[in-house]
């Protein structure tokens, strides 16, 4: 707890220092320094505390509402881990990326405010996870939600960035409105603000509308998590934000939605099975639609954004199944579902932020993140390429990378779900396993596309051909994250037990069978670890043999075989749209792809252009029409303010008459 406070203090110091030195290069050192120091202190705090410890603190509070109750329990620590780890990495990467770059630009130097909000975001995240009082939680939540708006609009001279920042702000606030409504309703009914008191009220049956509360919390937090259809801000803000910000948001921030949901579920009365199925159902929808949309993207960062939607969907699937298990008295399913979800959350945080940092390096080197402008980068920047390909395989859940363990644990929950009473729940469990498989298959395709087309093959533009490898310093942050992930893979059983502490602390969890189920998963993870080591050794051995064969029998470089065509160009390679064409023939709708072929008429057209655009269906079909309808309605209603004063008097008169007629009759 003390170290937590110290880390918070570092964040705030960093924020203030960067604001104080705004406009100078110093801000670009002090701000990140605060973030790194805070994160490392925080990490130290996590490392030095036993995983199951519960700390509480109550501090003086100046508001007439709520109280400054803070605390750290296993769930808090678990969610703090990616915040600290990604926070430190993103700060280092950002500091290097922004060094000197802004000075060359016209206009004011905004790095001071940028680092201010960066630190505020970290502090807000940390505070959200330590808050044990509704009011404190909401304040931290909103502050944390607002900061990315400023972080994301660093380059607001581009119209797209402004649009994205606006989208983010609106989504974040609408979600927050639901969260506020949730807490206000709960606090109003309970007559208290502390989490413990709220949970007490729920147990005593004083929260009279548990279903409404559940939906408020779920939809409110789903907006932050990025579940379909509330995901529209993700594909907007991630491409627009600087790479390190996108990394922090995807690795540290969206998890906070899960954390909020977790806390809300802890507060609310024990979940009913339908609540679990609701979460799981929306999770499956998000996972499938997210990965299909990711497959359809032509922009590396947008692809990664949709992949976040997918992974958040998977996590919610696990969470939902866990709740079902809890509701149906199946502790193994409960523990495995929740545990798998949390484990996957950790892995996703690491892999996704690593991917974003790599994408940021690509953007710096080439000047574009569109796959049509990339290609062949693995030769120019081998370290970044390797990291990206590995992280891509990891986020697709492939063994021996740790992403597999999370998916495996969730799959075990689904298998445990086959013991549920009733045909429908069993079928649903089986269907979720099939969905998991389909998502895994498409994730593989999506990351084969992202990694393969961006980093392999021939460069598609001169800029890509001349891309320069990042400096060694710039690799520090990605390598830090990669090291963390390797550790996670090596120590997966231990990590699973760490996650298990949070799961076991979930109210209503039967500890003995839950612990047994988690232990079983940990043993499986151990086997997977040995297995993975075997595969790596075997592959290494094969490569060594291959190298020997090459040395013994010669090694030549030749042009790629062109099927008889003698002048192949890089533009003839498979591109982003063509790669997904087989899938798009079947699934263009959910992938959001629309295509237009402009071709000269005649049998031998001289010119043909194919446009493949991938747009967000939820945005185009749901939110844009909704917002436009509201705007039209409001415009239509504006006629009452017509400027004619005598009619205004009529309003006053009519009001008086109507009120008298109503109230005196």
């Amino acid at each position: 707890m003390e170290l937590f406070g110290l880390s918070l203090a570092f964040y705030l110091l960093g924020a203030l220092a960067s604001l104080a030195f705004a406009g100078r290069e110093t801000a670009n050192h002090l701000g990140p320094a605060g973030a790194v120091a805070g994160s490392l202190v925080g990490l130290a705090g996590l490392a030095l505390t036993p995983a199951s410890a519960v700390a509480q603190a109550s501090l003086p509070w100046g508001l007439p509402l709520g109280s400054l109750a803070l605390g750290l329990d296993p769930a808090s620590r678990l969610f703090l881990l990616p915040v600290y780890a990604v926070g430190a990495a993103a700060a280092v990467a950002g500091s290097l990326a922004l060094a000197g770059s802004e000075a060359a630009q016209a206009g004011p130097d905004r790095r001071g405010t940028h680092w201010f909000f960066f630190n505020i975001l970290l502090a807000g995240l940390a505070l959200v996870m330590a808050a044990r009082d509704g009011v404190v939680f909401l304040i931290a939540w909103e502050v944390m939600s607002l900061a990315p708006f400023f972080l994301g609009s660093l380059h607001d001279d581009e119209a797209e960035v402004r649009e994205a920042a606006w989208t983010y702000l609106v989504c974040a606030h609408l979600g927050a409105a639901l969260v506020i409504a949730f807490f206000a309703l709960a606090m109003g009914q309970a007559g208290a603000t502390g989490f413990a008191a709220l949970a007490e009220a729920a147990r005593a049956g004083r929260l009279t509308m548990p279903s409404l509360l559940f939906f408020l919390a779920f939809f409110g937090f789903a907006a932050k998590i990025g579940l379909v259809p509330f995901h529209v801000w993700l594909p907007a803000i991630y491409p627009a934000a600087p790479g390190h910000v996108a990394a922090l948001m995807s690795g540290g921030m969206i998890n906070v939605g899960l954390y909020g949901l977790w806390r809300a579920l802890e507060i609310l009365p024990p979940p009913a099975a339908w609540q679990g199925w609701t979460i799981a159902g929306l999770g499956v929808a998000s996972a499938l639609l997210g990965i299909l949309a990711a497959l359809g993207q032509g922009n590396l960062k947008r692809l990664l954004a949709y992949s976040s939607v997918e992974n958040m969907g998977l996590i919610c699937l696990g969470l939902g199944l866990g709740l079902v298990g809890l509701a149906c008295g199946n502790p193994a399913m409960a523990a495995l579902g929740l545990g798998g979800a949390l484990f996957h959350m950790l892995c996703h945080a690491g892999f996704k932020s690593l991917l974003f940092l790599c994408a940021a390096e690509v953007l710096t080197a080439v000047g574009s993140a569109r796959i049509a402008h990339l290609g062949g980068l693995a030769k120019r920047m081998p370290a970044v390429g390797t990291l990206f390909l590995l992280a891509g395989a990891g986020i697709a859940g492939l063994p021996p990378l740790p992403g597999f363990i999370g998916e495996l644990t969730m799959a075990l929950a689904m298998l445990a779900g086959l013991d549920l009473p009733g045909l429908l729940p069993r079928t649903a469990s089986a269907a979720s396993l099939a969905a998991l498989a389909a998502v895994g298959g498409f994730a593989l395709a999506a990351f084969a596309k992202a990694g393969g087309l961006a980093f392999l093959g021939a460069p598609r533009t001169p800029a890509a051909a001349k891309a320069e490898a990042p400096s060694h310093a710039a690799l520090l942050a990605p390598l830090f994250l990669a090291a963390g992930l390797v550790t996670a893979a090596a120590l997966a059983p231990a990590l699973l037990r760490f996650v298990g502490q949070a799961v076991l602390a979930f109210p209503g969890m039967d500890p003995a069978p839950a612990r047994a189920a988690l232990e079983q998963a940990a043993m499986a993870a151990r086997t997977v670890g040995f297995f993975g080591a075997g595969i790596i050794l075997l592959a290494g051995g094969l490569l060594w043999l291959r190298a020997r064969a090459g040395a013994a029998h010669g090694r030549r470089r030749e042009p790629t075989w062109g099927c008889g065509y003698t002048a192949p160009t890089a533009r003839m390679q498979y591109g982003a749209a063509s790669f997904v064409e087989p899938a798009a023939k079947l699934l263009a709708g959910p992938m959001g792809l629309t295509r237009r072929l402009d071709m000269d008429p005649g049998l031998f057209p001289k010119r043909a252009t194919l446009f493949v655009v991938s747009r967000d269906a939820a945005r185009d079909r749901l939110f844009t029409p909704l917002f436009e309808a509201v705007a039209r309605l409001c415009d239509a209603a504006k006629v009452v303010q017509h400027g004619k004063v005598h009619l205004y008097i009529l309003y006053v008169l009519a009001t008086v008459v109507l009120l008298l007629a109503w109230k005196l009759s």
Partner: protein
Amino acid sequence: MAAIQSLLVALVVVNLAYLAVTRLKTLTRITALQGVLLAATPLAIAGPHGHGLILSLAVLAIKGIGFPWLVARTLSRLEVNPVVEPYFGFNMSLLAGVGGLLFSLWLESRLPFPPGLFPPLLFPAALTSIFSGLTLVVARRKALTQVIGYLAAENGIFLLGVPLAAQGSVWLELSVLLDVFVAVFVMGIALHHINKTFESIDVGRFCSLRD
């Protein structure tokens, strides 16, 4: 008692007359008439002595002579079109006036009157006055008619305050104060500016500020 009843009936008729006339000059005269009638009410209720007499004289001076004279002077100075220029037709306005009267009568039936405070018909007459005055504000185009309508509404409030004045309440004085300051002082100045700036007192042109 008969005197006050006649006065009140006359006031109601005058209120409706506000809505029926077409020429500004006639409107001014009706204002003067209403002022004179109002000046008579304190006398009719409380008798011709002391406080009531002074008040009566003051009202006669202000409402019966002062305002009509000011309005007439403004009218002649501004050289405006002598027709009142309605938004809504006269029939509609009259209908609204009668509606106001009916509403006032209904309202009277809903309220328990303390014994001896209000003479019969005073409350509906006062409310009708307010409603027809405001109807004038709503239904007429010129700034000047709006001022006159406002004065008429004020007269209704004054009428309602008369019985209370006997109890020593200050509301009557305050309502006169309202007349003096708002209707004459500020609106007069604003009217002057409006005429200067727009070369017209047609507030129908006032619609550049809207959404």
